[in-house]
């Protein structure tokens, strides 16, 4: 079975490794130059200093300037990062979907399932080997991406918990890739043709990923709230890397006056026409900024939960696929 699996998929494996190598050849130089600039601007120290709440205003300004410079140079790479997020689903499309669907489409399942190896064993060995190969692939991809995207995330205000960047690094890509492959295999056992199976895989993957990302992820842990006055020295003391879910300005009685914004005025500041800061919005004295957020130090907890969800889904799909295989003729 192992020999057969290798013989059947060696060409595919070769091209996958080739594609990964090409990707690495493209991304590693960019990553190196990015890291070079990052350390030249002294941003590694900045990131450490800014994590400390007692940072002086001068350091903060100098560092922010550095991050801005870095951002100006490399922020377009965030678009590349968006493209890289799609890699797991490609693995699902080209490794998962054809695994059973191709056999059935070519009728070869009637050859291989009527040899001395039962088809349950066939399915377990095949899914297991392809799953293991994909696991290695995903781990390489996840680690590589963590390394590559690290300077970008440190420079971005939102940090590693932000959308897209969270999905690129750590162990979450392993969960996504396994899920994509399992979904592909399962779709192949249900629709039994490669193209429909691939289409269903694509649609299903995007749907589930979006649903988890938008509906579930903000609630993995109860979000924290933070309030701070609208009048004060310097920028508000929000730690870098927090994932802000919602924010706004509230009156002292708690009513939301302006959503998705924050206001910062110097102490006792007045508008040129003499009005109190924010009065044009209908702010009463004592109004404050309010935000709901997930703190940056929950990154690995969230990674674990996210990965757990997708690995569990993958196992469920594989179980269903093995059951389906027994009913295909």
């Amino acid at each position, binding site marked *: *079975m192992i*020999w*057969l699996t290798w*013989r*059947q998929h060696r*060409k595919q494996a070769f091209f996958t490794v080739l594609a990964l190598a090409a990707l690495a050849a493209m991304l590693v130089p960019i990553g190196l130059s990015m890291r070079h600039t990052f350390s030249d601007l002294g941003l590694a120290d900045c990131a450490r200093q800014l994590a400390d709440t007692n940072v002086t205003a001068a350091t903060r300004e100098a560092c922010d300037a550095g991050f801005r410079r870095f951002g100006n140079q490399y922020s377009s790479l965030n678009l590349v990062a968006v493209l890289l997020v799609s890699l797991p689903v490609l693995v699902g499309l080209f490794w998962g979907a054809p695994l059973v669907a191709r056999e059935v489409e*070519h*009728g*070869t399942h*009637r*050859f*291989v*399932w*009527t*040899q*001395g*190896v*039962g088809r349950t*064993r066939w399915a377990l060995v095949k899914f297991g080997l392809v799953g293991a190969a994909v696991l290695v692939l995903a781990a390489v991809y996840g680690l590589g991406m963590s390394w590559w995207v690290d300077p970008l995330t440190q420079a971005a205000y939102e940090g590693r918990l932000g959308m897209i960047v969270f999905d690129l690094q750590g162990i979450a890509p392993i969960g996504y890739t396994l899920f994509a492959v399992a979904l592909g295999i399962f779709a192949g056992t249900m629709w039994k043709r490669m193209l429909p199976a691939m289409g269903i895989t694509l649609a299903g993957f995007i749907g589930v990923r979006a649903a988890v990302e938008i509906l579930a992820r903000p609630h993995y842990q109860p979000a924290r709230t933070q309030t701070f006055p609208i009048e004060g020295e310097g920028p508000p003391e929000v730690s870098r890397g927090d994932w802000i879910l919602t924010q706004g300005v509230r009156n002292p009685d708690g009513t939301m006056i302006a959503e998705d914004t924050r206001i910062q005025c110097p102490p006792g500041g007045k508008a040129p026409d003499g009005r109190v800061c924010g009065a044009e919005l209908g702010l009463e004295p004592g109004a404050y900024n309010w935000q709901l957020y997930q703190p940056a130090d929950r990154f690995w907890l969230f990674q674990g939960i996210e990965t757990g969800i997708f690995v569990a889904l993958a196992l469920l799909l594989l179980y269903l696929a093995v059951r389906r295989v*027994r*009913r295909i*003729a």
Partner: protein
Amino acid sequence: MDMVLEADRLGKRYGSTWALRDCSLHLPAGRIAALVGPNGAGKSTLLHLAVGLLKPTEGTVRVFGRSPYGDTDGLADIGFVAQDTPLYRDFTASELVIAGGKLNKRWDAGLARKRLAQLGIPPDKPVGKLSGGQRAQVALALALAKQPRLLLLDEPVASLDPLARREFLQSLMGSVAESGTTVLLSSHLLADLERVCDYLIVLNASQVQLTGAVDDLVAEHRQLVGPRHDGGVIGGVTAVIRASHTDRQTTLLVRTDGPVTDPAWTIREVSLEDVVLAYLADGTTQTSHSEWGVAA
């Protein structure tokens, strides 16, 4: 007699259509059996049930006394060549022989290689690039290398040209004659199999119409020609399979259990093909008339 394949009220339903229903038959050991029926009669379904690819919806099927669905150990005794002889097209014939060895406990790679060498099949060419006849031979060689006690072939010659058909059947007969393997091969054309089979199963519209040894079937059936007949009992006749009438004359194809003594009838012997066609013509058209909403 030793039974290789036994089906008892076997049925398989896909959604609301029965692909096979109420199928009861026995296949004795050592026979070369032809499974004949028009396209869509349920031949492939029956073979898939026999090799355990399908699970019966109702009734039972037993191969060597075992229920084949989900029975991995039983698979070792069954050689199966599916319709259109599916093989991994990018594998070479030689790699397929290796693959077979990895997938089977009992595997005579030497036999397969010898066969393929005799047939002049190139070992290092992907089987997808071989001719249909050569591919069918590779599939047969792989099935035989399992040293099966029952060999099931689903439309093995349907896609072959007449010459390749003859070669395929000849090489098949040559190899099973020595081993005593029971063979069940399907076709929608009796003519393909008439020369090689000694047992016959006729399927039509998902039901078994006729089953038995070829010699018995030919001996039991007669064509009677006589004056117009109103359907009364004829001595020695157990069933009228097909009747056609003109104004004054009636032609019957009947199954007999003894000599027909009524001197009014002229009795003729029939060929196997006459018998099969008579059974196939029977009972196919009733449903479609009602489905189309027209009178029969």
